[in-house]
């Protein structure tokens, strides 16, 4: 134990010697959450639409009114330069320039068509580039048209649909995104903290001193990890407090539970970093590897942005070895739903298992190099 302490003290000196890095570790996540917390949102707040009213009747004007009455729609009926009504070609050009998201074409025979009780349709030309947005726009259109018919026929509603949203009543994507961002940042920070530690010793040559020291390889690996646990955990607390008090993200569960799991999660991140560090020949390689290995998988395969339920079985299998998958579930559950310790035995167990496997692999790698060097 005393020997591990020596390594820990040495690592602490390393950390203290580069105060700028330490400041960055605490400061960067806050800036990141601040900027991204406001900027990243999937909500559709406004739909710019051009209306080409070929009918110009009382009915068609009512329909345009129905669209305009919806707060989300910003209706344009005129081109930017030209006087008078918009031509289809001009509208198509606006669609191409992304000035509008859709063109609503009301047919010339709208009134006659409705009077004759034929089925008539309104043309919707929607920019399909962003699929999510296109779908949402289409749903809004359909709803407005349906409501219009209901009003026209004097029927209140065809069907009563009553929607209630739980846990996040305003459906603010911030409440979903920020806890996720906290999870991804914590993993990346902890992996980056340790990822250079062995590689740096290798580059500067001081690794030879570690090799010939009486310390056993597991002691070295563990000793190199412990100081960073403290740094990362402190960092985690600061980040959580910031999310709680600046963005008003509720904390419905217990902070203690969250911190226990955060600790397990951080250890898995540090273990990943130290494995990369033990494997990479230079700092540059370690750096590239850490970012490639932590960034995209934690973004894509953890449920941070894309829901896991939709993934194919192969990708879901990969998601099981990504620590962020588990912590995302935990942090969102505890923060938004007030979930408790007993809900997350599986997740906690997986985090411990992942950490142990990663630490063992790092020790093995380090030991091999040590043997090769002697």
């Amino acid at each position, binding site marked *: 134990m005393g020997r591990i302490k020596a390594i820990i003290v040495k690592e602490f000196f390393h950390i203290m010697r*580069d105060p*700028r*890095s330490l400041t960055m570790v605490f400061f*960067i996540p806050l800036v990141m959450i601040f900027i991204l917390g*406001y*900027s*990243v949102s*999937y909500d559709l707040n406004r739909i710019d639409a051009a209306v080409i009213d070929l009918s110009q009747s009382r009915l068609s004007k009512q329909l345009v009114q129905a669209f305009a009455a919806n707060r989300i729609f910003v209706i344009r009926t005129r081109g930017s330069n030209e006087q008078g009504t918009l031509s289809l070609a001009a509208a*198509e050009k606006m*669609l191409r*320039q992304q000035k509008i998201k859709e063109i609503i074409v009301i047919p010339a025979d709208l009134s006659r068509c*409705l009077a004759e*009780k034929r*089925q*008539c*349709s*309104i*043309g919707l030309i929607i920019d*399909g*580039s*962003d*699929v*999510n*947005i296109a*779908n*949402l726009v*289409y749903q809004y*259109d*359909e709803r407005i048209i349906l409501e*219009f*018919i209901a009003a*026209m026929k004097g029927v209140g509603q*065809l*069907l*009563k*649909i*009553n929607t*209630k*949203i*739980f*846990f996040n009543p305003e459906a603010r994507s911030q*409440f*979903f995104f920020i806890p996720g961002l906290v999870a991804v940042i914590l993993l*990346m920070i902890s992996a980056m903290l340790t990822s250079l530690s062995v590689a740096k010793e290798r580059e500067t040559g001081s690794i030879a001193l570690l090799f010939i020291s009486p310390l056993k390889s597991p002691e070295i690996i563990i000793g190199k990890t412990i100081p960073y646990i403290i740094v990362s955990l402190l960092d985690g607390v600061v980040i959580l407090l910031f999310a709680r008090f600046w963005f008003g993200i509720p904390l419905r569960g217990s902070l203690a539970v969250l911190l226990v799991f955060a600790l397990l999660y951080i250890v898995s991140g540090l273990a990943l970093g130290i494995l990369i560090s033990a*494997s990479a020949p230079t700092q*540059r*390689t370690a*750096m*590239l590897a*850490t*970012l*490639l290995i932590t*960034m995209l998988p934690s973004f894509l395969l953890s449920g941070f942005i894309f*829901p896991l*339920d*939709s993934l*194919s079985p192969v*990708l879901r299998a990969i998601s099981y070895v990504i620590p962020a998958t588990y912590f995302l579930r935990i942090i*969102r559950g505890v923060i938004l*739903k007030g979930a408790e310790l007993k809900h997350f035995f599986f997740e906690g167990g997986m985090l411990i298992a992942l950490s142990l496997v990663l630490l063992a692999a790092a020790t093995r790698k380090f030991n091999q190099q040590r043997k090769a060097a002697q």
Partner: protein
Amino acid sequence: MKLFYLVKKELIEIVRQKELLVLMFIGPVIQIIILGYVISTDIRHVPVGIVNLAKGQVAGQIIQRVRQTPLFHVHVLSDRSEDYLYLLKKGEVKTVLIFRDALDEKRSVLKYPEVQILMDGMDSNTSMIAAGYFNGIIKNYILNDMEKLGQGLPLGGQAVFRFNPQLRSINYMGPGIVGFLLTIITMFLTSASMVREKEQQTLDTLLISPLSTLEIYIGKALPAALIGLADMVIGLVVVVLWFGIPFRGNLFYLFLASLVYLAAILSYALLISVLSATTQQAMFFAWFSLMIFLLMSGFFTPVDNIPPLLRVLADINPLRYLIQIIREIFLKGNGIEFFWKDLLKLSAIALTLLSVSLLNFKRFISK
């Protein structure tokens, strides 16, 4: 010619490491493929619970339709009103649908059951999409039903989707990946390069060489640019051949925009490199920048949603313009008359970054 030797030395330093080569060339391909599959899977298998308290057949028929769509996975189906909030809380289901007989018969002339949708607002995006689809299912049912009664709805929307008629997500996201790859590789190869010389004490050797400051600068940037371009070509090939994304525009403009972008990102990375004292600092800097660049570029979420004050950051984000241009070229086949403004802005950013970076570089060298 002197420059050539420096570029060669830098390339050797990269090629010498098997691990680095793998990371640079195999890594991105794996990433694109995974990314491609993740984003091309549209939302489906959303776990739902259904409580049917209605007596008529209609509810049963609607439920049958819900079961048939791949979007939903019916996790629980019951005819008793239990505490479904618990299921929602545990996360076993994302949405609970409750059918009841309509009480107020006057309001719903057609006697359809009342529907209540309870959503887990945590993942508001998924829930909203699921609710939208569910509304669609019900509406279609009513439409069919009315048609059978010979009343058909008098008015409907006929939608056409431009630029991406089949609404494939990958067509939108895929081209963006190319821009992302260009960024990640060049940024990480370059942002630590001068620090490295400092840490390994080879900086003095470089400084006493007959190379001019400008030559050192270019010598550091060029290898990363070459590798970045190679990665980009690999990315394009994978995106077009593997995922079958149509390329409708002009390849020349794509490369032109990429070159301008490379100038911007490399200047930025070299700036990081001279401003950081250790590799760790460079790494944190690069990571921070990459996260901001990526998440504020419109790659995942629309730039329109960024509030006005922070919009300034998005406006000076070079990746935003690159992704915008790449998408226009890929999806819409737009010519330069559509994106010359973006290209101009990108060039302005590149020029500014280049001059700031070069100035700092000179100061760094003269110290």
